[in-house]
């Protein structure tokens, strides 16, 4: 993975350390270079709007959404996104602190496209991305 993809990764997580380390990791391992973070899940749609305004194609956006955030649960944010006329098709990978099967099933039921347990290794993340057809072809092997 020498050349990062054109994808923009939007990470939604209330933990600044987590964001810092993940950004570093995905850039270092050449998975994506464009990284945007949002600490408030209820601001997800707004954040996507800002990206659109900045001229970023929503077909090249990928969301990494933390499940366990104190105020709004990540599942809620996923529900809001999937009901949104404009952004409902953006791929979402749920980020969880637990490999609890129940959480995982709920995530897929609610329309998640992938599920990774943190801390994740880059190849795990890459594998999750490769499982999403619309993303796969944008990845640079």
């Amino acid at each position, binding site marked *: 993975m020498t050349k990062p993809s054109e994808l923009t990764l939007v990470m939604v997580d209330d*933990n600044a*350390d*987590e964001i810092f*380390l993940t950004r*570093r990791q995905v850039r270092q391992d050449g998975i994506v270079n464009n990284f945007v973070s949002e600490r408030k899940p209820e601001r997800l749609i707004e954040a996507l709007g800002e990206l659109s305004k900045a001229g970023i194609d929503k077909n090249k956006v990928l969301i990494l959404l933390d499940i366990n955030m104190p105020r709004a649960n990540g599942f809620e944010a996923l529900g809001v996104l999937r009901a949104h006329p404009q952004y409902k098709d953006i791929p979402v990978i749920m980020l969880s*602190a*637990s490999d609890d099967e129940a959480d995982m099933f709920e995530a897929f039921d609610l329309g998640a496209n992938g599920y990774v347990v*943190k*801390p994740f290794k880059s190849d795990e993340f890459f594998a999750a991305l490769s499982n999403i057809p619309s993303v796969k072809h944008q990845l640079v092997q």
Partner: protein
Amino acid sequence: MIGIATNTAAVDVVWRNLMGAVPDAVIVSDASGQIVYVNTAVTRFFGYQPTDLLGQPVEILVPRTVRGQHKSHRAAYHSEPRRRFMGFGSDLRAVRADGSEFPVAISLGYTTSPSGNLVIAIVQDLSDLRERDRSIENLTQRMVRDTKLEEVNKELEAFSFSVSHDLRAPLRVVDGFSQVLKEDYFDKLDDYGRDCINRIRTAAQRMGQLIDDLLNLSRITRSDMVTTDVDLSAMTREIVEMMMAAYPDQKVELAIEEGMVAHGDARLLRIALENLLSNAWKFSSGQPTARIEIGRSKSTRGETYFVRDNGAGFDMAYADKLFGAFQRMHNAQAFPGTGIGLATVQRIINRHSGRVWATSEINKGATFYFTLFQEAGNGIQYNPTG
């Protein structure tokens, strides 16, 4: 068998026959307190032959400490006789020929006869009743205690689950940022600084392992049980194949008993067997030829399964420690591991209301035994869960 009476005027034949059949001790005394009649049950109760008692004061059957009291009660009773029942609630005791005492309940009756007024005492032996009371009380106490224990365990379980869970995030920061330090600043540090970072990283990773182990352990306790008939022999063969692949260089002689079918949760039992077998393999890896045996023995209390090896063994002084989380008897150089295996086994066996234990001798191998859904030996079945 019929009781003996000296005063035939006072006691007729029908009455004597009747008295012989009464299960309680019947003692008749006259106004002076002398025993004039006893039935046959008296021998069983007090260990006296009827002839030993006739003509004796009734106080012979009363514990020495309360004999004086008894005499004055008796006098009072004769001056105002009425039917009375004394017993269950109060702590009445009687004394046997051999001096031993036992709890009793006594009914008193009063009758006149040609030879004077008579007091009839019917004595019930309460020993069995008291014994039963005690065991019911013990059982009740135990159930209350186990129920509380179970609640506390559940709470503890939930607590340790959430704590372990919450520890992950800060640990990730320690681990992640020490890695950042290492990657970006390693060449700016001297050997001492690098050593410090390496130590932090090793410890953080070890802590991560411990947390994962705890979370897995707690999952064992929290998961739902699905019980079916489980072919432990077949399951053992499958696990053994895995072990053979994992330790290709180890020579192992195997003996697996056929037809071991148990009732239980297949997923959990597999985890238990995997842990016992992996220990058997690991701790016998120093032997030129390891001998590992998996079998069962039957006893009146049900089936006991065992996993036996001829490996390093352990000191029986620590036999009860073995099953605690992170307790290890061997050093990590010789035998790697974190010490979560047997704690996992114990939880699984507990969830099956069984028992797990081990016997061993250093350098002579170890045997781990377990039972599942063991029934209590007596009529009262009581299986605490947890």
